[in-house]
């Protein structure tokens, strides 16, 4: 909404915590701190919530990518007598942006898109994000739908269904009888192990556990030991455990998954299947896009008293001249706001101005180094990959598309039934971890060529190799955006820096990092106390302090409103994940 005052004065001017940026980690910290009774000011220079975790219209997405890839001009700020001002500048985290439009009908509907900046992303029904939504009571603001199916690309370039449960294995038509038996007995072994681990916790041991030696060994070695054929191994490693790097590459593999972690990931996947009785698969996606999640946590924070100001750039961080300690921030309006703590997202850097060379301070305000790169792609089509699935996940394991493909490429197809695009269109998100832009783009293009046919009136050379495979009738690519995103990890300092979106499908690693940052920030406060988690009526009363019980019961029991309310069992798995 257009404001007559572009930068309204903020009142009050002192807070326990100032948070800059409304990405998911910042929003969760704001909500957790507000819940713990801190006074919080949450600022974002953008006109929208979500920072790098936003879902945007097509036009807004393109301009955001472009703005966030430009090195900004330095602003020189003046400090008052008692403080030293360090410049806050935006750091470009996107690069190598390629936008291709083959059909104007896409741009004409720009506003009907909610495109994720950090796609592909899904939630596993038993993962930390779901847990956190429930613990914080932010769950009531977001609705989800199931992802219909998962496919994995086999050695022939064909997509085969991922059989992720006993019954799915049973029903699968592509697996041989012997393969089904192998997969089932492997699942049984893992199940036995998990039960044994559990019973050890209560003091008995039925000896079904996988040996400690095996648990420490690479998961791929363990799968070989279990004599699983390559096809099954590939499904388990890349489509269920969602591993990035080629596990068969031996010593040269950057990230070998240990059996212990592999089994944890299987457990997460399988406790996700069936966590909500009326959600069929393991994976869910929020209606209107992933950008709803930061909004939900911000709303939760607001309910707990957090003050929200969008479109409010911070130009400098103020330090006490004598002690050098963090003191507050200066807004673009010139107003100075003080706080005890500062959380800032990694699209900003804090630098000392040339006039005040503060090497020491500069060192303390570590800006967060780029630890890796991700190639991301967004593609739009008018048809679905598979006629019977409106939303699906596709995994291209390492080496499945071309011999040098070092990492898994993951693709998520979504349809208009998730309100992310106009009806009749489909959105595909593609991502791959990469060492450099060239390699990343190569992987994206390989996946795009495998998934789509180029538009007939394409301005670029239409891939002649696609013509031979036209019998398969691939969706025609109408629009695409490819870009490289820097990976920056969260870190603790005088200012807490939150992490950028990572390359994972779910938010588990990010949320782990976020809860750790919160604990370091407020060691004496609990990260969303669990009280509301065990008693759902509390949860609703908590939200409306006036307590409208009739509403609570009717909402919980509400059926026939088209929106299914799903139950979730409080699983041991999810509880223990926080330990």
């Amino acid at each position: 909404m257009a404001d007559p005052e572009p930068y309204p004065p903020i009142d009050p001017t002192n807070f326990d915590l100032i948070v800059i940026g409304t990405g998911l980690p910042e929003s969760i910290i704001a909500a957790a701190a507000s819940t713990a009774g801190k006074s919080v000011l949450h600022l974002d220079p953008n006109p929208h919530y979500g920072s790098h975790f936003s879902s945007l219209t097509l036009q807004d997405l393109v301009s955001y990518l472009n703005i966030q890839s430009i090195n900004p001009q330095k602003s020189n700020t003046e400090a008052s007598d008692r403080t030293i001002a360090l410049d806050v500048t935006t750091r470009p985290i996107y690069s190598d942006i390629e936008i291709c439009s083959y059909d104007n009908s896409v741009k004409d509907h720009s506003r009907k898109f909610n495109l994720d900046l950090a796609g592909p992303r899904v939630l596993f029904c038993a993962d930390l994000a779901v847990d956190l939504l429930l613990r914080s009571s932010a769950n009531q603001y977001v609705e989800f739908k199931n992802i219909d199916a998962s496919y994995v690309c086999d050695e022939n370039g064909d997509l085969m269904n991922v059989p992720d449960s006993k019954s799915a294995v049973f029903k699968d038509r592509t697996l041989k009888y012997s393969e089904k038996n192998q997969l089932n007995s492997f699942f049984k072994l893992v199940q036995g192990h998990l039960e044994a681990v559990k019973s050890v916790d209560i003091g008995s041991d039925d000896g079904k556990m996988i040996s400690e030696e095996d648990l420490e060994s690479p998961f791929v070695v363990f799968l070989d030991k279990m004599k699983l054929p390559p096809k099954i191994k590939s499904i388990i490693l890349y489509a269920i455990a969602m591993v990035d790097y080629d596990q068969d590459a031996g010593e040269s593999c950057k990230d070998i998954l240990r059996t212990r972690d592999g089994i944890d990931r299987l457990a997460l996947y399988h406790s996700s299947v069936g966590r909500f009785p009326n959600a069929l698969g393991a994976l869910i996606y929020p209606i209107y896009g992933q950008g709803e999640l930061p909004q939900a946590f911000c709303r939760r924070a607001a309910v707990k008293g957090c003050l929200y100001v969008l479109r409010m750039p911070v130009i400098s961080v103020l330090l006490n001249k004598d002690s050098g300690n963090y003191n507050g921030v200066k807004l673009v309006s010139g107003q100075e706001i003080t706080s005890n703590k500062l959380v800032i997202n990694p699209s900003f850097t804090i630098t000392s101005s040339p006039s005040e060379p503060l090497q020491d301070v500069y060192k303390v305000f570590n800006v967060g180094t780029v630890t890796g790169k991700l190639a991301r792609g967004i593609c739009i089509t008018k048809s679905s990959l598979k006629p019977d699935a409106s939303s699906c996940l596709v995994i291209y394991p390492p080496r499945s598309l071309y011999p040098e493909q070092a990492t898994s490429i993951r693709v998520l197809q979504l349809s208009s039934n998730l309100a992310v695009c106009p009806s009749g269109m489909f959105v595909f998100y593609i991502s791959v971890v990469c060492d450099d832009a060239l390699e990343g783009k190569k992987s994206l293009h390989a996946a795009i060529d495998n998934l789509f046919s180029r538009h007939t009136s394409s301005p670029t050379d239409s891939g002649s190799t696609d013509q031979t495979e036209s019998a398969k009738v691939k969706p025609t690519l109408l629009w695409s955006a490819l870009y490289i995103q820097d990976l920056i990890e969260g870190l603790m300092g005088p200012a807490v820096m939150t992490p950028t979106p990572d390359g994972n499908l779910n938010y588990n690693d990010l949320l782990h990092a976020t809860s750790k940052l919160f604990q370091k920030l407020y060691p004496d406060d609990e990260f969303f106390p669990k009280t509301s988690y065990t008693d759902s009526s509390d949860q609703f009363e908590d939200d409306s302090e006036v307590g409208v019980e009739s509403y609570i019961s009717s909402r919980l029991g509400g059926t026939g409103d088209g929106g299914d309310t799903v139950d979730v069992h409080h699983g041991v798995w999810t509880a223990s994940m926080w330990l």
Partner: protein
Amino acid sequence: MATNGHNNLNAKLVLLGDMGAGKSSLVLRFVKGQFLEFQESTIGAAFFSQTLAVNDATVKFEIWDTAGQERYHSLAPMYYRGAAAAIIVYDITSADSFTRAKKWVQELQKQGNPNMVMALAGNKADLEEKRKVTADEARVYADENGLFFMETSAKTAANVNDIFHEIAKRLPRAQPTQNPAGMVLVDRPAEGARAASCSYGFQNLGTLYSV
């Protein structure tokens, strides 16, 4: 979005308007029959519900409050999503709040569902002696912009139930859902924490696909 089932409608209703116009007071009067002379700025309340019987159906309003995010014009799009109705509230003793109300109407027209039922509430109607906005002026504006208009008083309860009833009557009945309904994740301690441990691992797998 108003969703229909056996003559029972569920409708999300959002409140908009300046800080201090009386949004929360209107809801509290409607939902709880209460009025607090010095209602604090909205903190802690964000969600209310009330069911109304109208001629042919019952309407359950799911009322969303701004949670204070309107203060610096930072309402999330989430707030408007799927809203079937909106009440834009201004304070009849503040010309500014009426000007701001018009801005909120524009914002809604931009963001919201075209079939949304919009009501303009001139609140604090009990403060006649301090009136700055005439009823005629507001009525003309409302007519021109497809809103219906009432002057209300959360303090005396005047027209409070009426404005919600009028919205309930005006909600389209067999409205096709514009956007898909999904599932809300709800944590229910079902059979207690111990029983829940069976969702650990693989034990549920046998029954999953028969759901």
